[in-house]
C-alpha cells in the first residue's frame, strides 16, 4: 500500500515500514538489546531525509517502551529519584541536541554528522558485541579489571553534591547521573536512539546499581526522554512523520513479542552474534557511503 508521507515528502510502501518495525522489534525481543539504533539507518537507506529519520526514530521509541516502562514501574523496579535526576540531565541534553540538529540542518551538515555518529556508534557496539559473543561461544568469559573499577569509584565518591538513592542502595553525587542523562539526551536528539546501550552498562558497572533496578529505571527515563525529544523535533524541526512513526510502533510491538517468544527456545550467545553481525553490516554500509563517489554531485530538496 503506497502512502505519501506528509513530513518526509515521499511515497513509500507502508508495509515495508511495518516490516522494518517487525524485524528490528524481533531482534530486540530476541536478544534484549534495544533496536532503536537500527531504525534510523534503515529509514535513511530508503531515502527518508536524515533529520526526519532521526526525529521519527526517537518518537517511535515512545510507543515501543511505553508498556515495558509501565510494567517495571508497577513491579517497583524503577528508582524514581535516580530516574528524575537522569531526566534532568537528558531533557537538557535533548533540548540542546534538537537545537544543534536544527543549526546543522540549516547549514546542510546534518546528514553528514548523523552518518559519522552512526558509523562510530554502530561500529563500536557491533565490534564489542561480536568479540563478546565469539568469546562466549568459545566458553571463555572476559574479566574486567577490578583495579580500574575501584579507581573510578573513588573518583565518583569525591564529586560534590552527594545524594542518597535508597531504592538502589547507593550514595553518589547527583552530577554523575545528570551528566549520564545529558549525554543520552544528546544521542536521542542527534541520532534518534533511546540510548539504553550506553545507559545500561554505565548504570551496571560505573554507578553499580542493582541489576533489578537498572532495566526498569533506564526504560522509564528513556520513555520520557524520547517523548521530550519527539515533541521538540516535531515542534521545532517539523521532523516527525506521523505515518512512519505509527507504522514503526505497530511493527515493533508485534516484532518484540514474537522475538521474546522465539528467544525462549534459542541460545542467547548465537542470537547476540547474529545481532552483532547485523549491526556491523549496517555500520559498514553507512560508512561506505562516505567514500563511494556519489552518483549525483548535486542534490535538491523542495522546501516549499
Amino acid at each position, binding site marked *: 500500500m503506497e502512502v*505519501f508521507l506528509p513530513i518526509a515528502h515521499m511515497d513509500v510502501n507502508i508495509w515495508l515500514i511495518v516490516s522494518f518495525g517487525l524485524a528490528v522489534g524481533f531482534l530486540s525481543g530476541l536478544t534484549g538489546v534495544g533496536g532503536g539504533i537500527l531504525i534510523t539507518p534503515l529509514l535513511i537507506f530508503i531515502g527518508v531525509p536524515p533529520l526526519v529519520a532521526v526525529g521519527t526514530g526517537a*518518537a517511535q521509541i515512545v510507543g515501543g517502551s511505553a*508498556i515495558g516502562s509501565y510494567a517495571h514501574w508497577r513491579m517497583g523496579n524503577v528508582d524514581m529519584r535516580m530516574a528524575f535526576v537522569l531526566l534532568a540531565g537528558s531533557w537538557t541534553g535533548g533540548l540542546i541536541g534538537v537545537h544543534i540538529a536544527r543549526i546543522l540542518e540549516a547549514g546542510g551538515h546534518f546528514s553528514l554528522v548523523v552518518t559519522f555518529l552512526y558509523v562510530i556508534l554502530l561500529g563500536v557496539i557491533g565490534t564489542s558485541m561480536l568479540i563478546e559473543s565469539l568469546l562466549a561461544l568459545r566458553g571463555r568469559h572476559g574479566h574486567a579489571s577490578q583495579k580500574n573499577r575501584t579507581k573510578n569509584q573513588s573518583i565518583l565518591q569525591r564529586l560534590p553534591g552527594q545524594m542518597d538513592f535508597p531504592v538502589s542502595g547507593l550514595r553518589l553525587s547527583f552530577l554523575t547521573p545528570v551528566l549520564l542523562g545529558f549525554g543520552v539526551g544528546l544521542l536521542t536528539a542527534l541520532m534518534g536512539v533511546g540510548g539504553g546501550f550506553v545507559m545500561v552498562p554505565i548504570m551496571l558497572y560505573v554507578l553499580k546499581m542493582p541489576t533489578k533496578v537498572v532495566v526498569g529505571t533506564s526504560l522509564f527515563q528513556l520513555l520520557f526522554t524520547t517523548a521530550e525529544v519527539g515533541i521538540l523535533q516535531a*515542534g521545532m524541526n517539523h521532523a516527525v512523520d506521523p505515518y512512519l512513526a505509527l507504522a514503526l510502533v*505497530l511493527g515493533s510491538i508485534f516484532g518484540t513479542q514474537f522475538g521474546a517468544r522465539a528467544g525462549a527456545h534459542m541460545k542467547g550467545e548465537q542470537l547476540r552474534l547474529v545481532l552483532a553481525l547485523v549491526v556491523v553490516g549496517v555500520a559498514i554500509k553507512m560508512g561506505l557511503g*562516505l567514500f563511494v563517489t556519489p552518483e549525483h554531485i548535486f*542534490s535538491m*530538496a523542495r522546501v*516549499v
Partner: protein
Amino acid sequence: MLYLRLMLMLLTMSAAMLAEASTPLVMATSTDQVNVTSHFVGENLLVYGAITGPGQVIVILRSPDSTEAMQQKTRTGPIWLNGAKVTVTKAPGIWQRLSSAPVSHILPDDTLQQRGLTLSSLVDKARFTPKPDHLDTWQKAFLDEKLRHRNYVVESTGVTLKQGLFSAQIKLPASLPLGHYQLLTYLVRQQQVVAVRKQQIDVRQVGFQAWIARFARENSWIYGIVLTFILAGLGFALGILMRRRSA
C-alpha cells in the same frame, strides 16, 4: 476570451475569416482539479482538442514557483562531504512541455525565449541565493536534477496530432507543489504562434492527509504533543493486548 474575439472581429471585419480565426484552437482537459490524498501516487492529466488548418501544438503545464534547497558534495581527502548550499527561488516546481514536433523546428529561438517556452528561459529567471561562484554549473545542475526527478519534462512527441485532433498525456509525479497550475496550449503555424488557450488546474490536498499535513506545519507543537501521546497510547494498548493473549 470575449475580448480577444472582439479584437479579432475588428481586425478582420470578415465573417468568413472570423469563423476560422476565432476558433483555430479548442482544447479541454480530463480534469481541472487534482486532489492529493494519502494514496496519491501521481496522476495522468489528459489534454485534448482540435485545430483548424495545418499547424503544430505545444502544451505547457507550469506549477507555482517553489523553493528548492540545493547542495553540492565535495571531496575532501577520501571522504565526500557536503559542500556549498544554495537556495533556488523564482522557478516553477513542475514544468512540462509536450509538443507535436521539436519546438526548435517550429518556432524561432527568440520567440521561444520570449514566451518562456524553453528550459533555459526558466533557469535564467531563477534566482540562486547566495549567488554561487560558478552560476552556470549550478544552473545546469538545477535543470539536471529537475529533469532527473521528472519535475521538468520535455517531450517533443508528447502531443499526438491526427487530422486536426490532438491529445497529450501529462504524467503528474507523486510529490506535487500545491496551488494553481497554468496549462497553456499553443497553436503554431509557419514559425508563428497563431492561438493560445489558457486553463487553470488546481492541485490541492484533500481529506485527512491535507488536514494532518497542515496541522503538523501550522500547529507543530500541539501536533508533536498529541502524536507522542497517541504513540504512547498505541504502544501501551497493543502491549496489554499481547500480554492478555499470551497469558
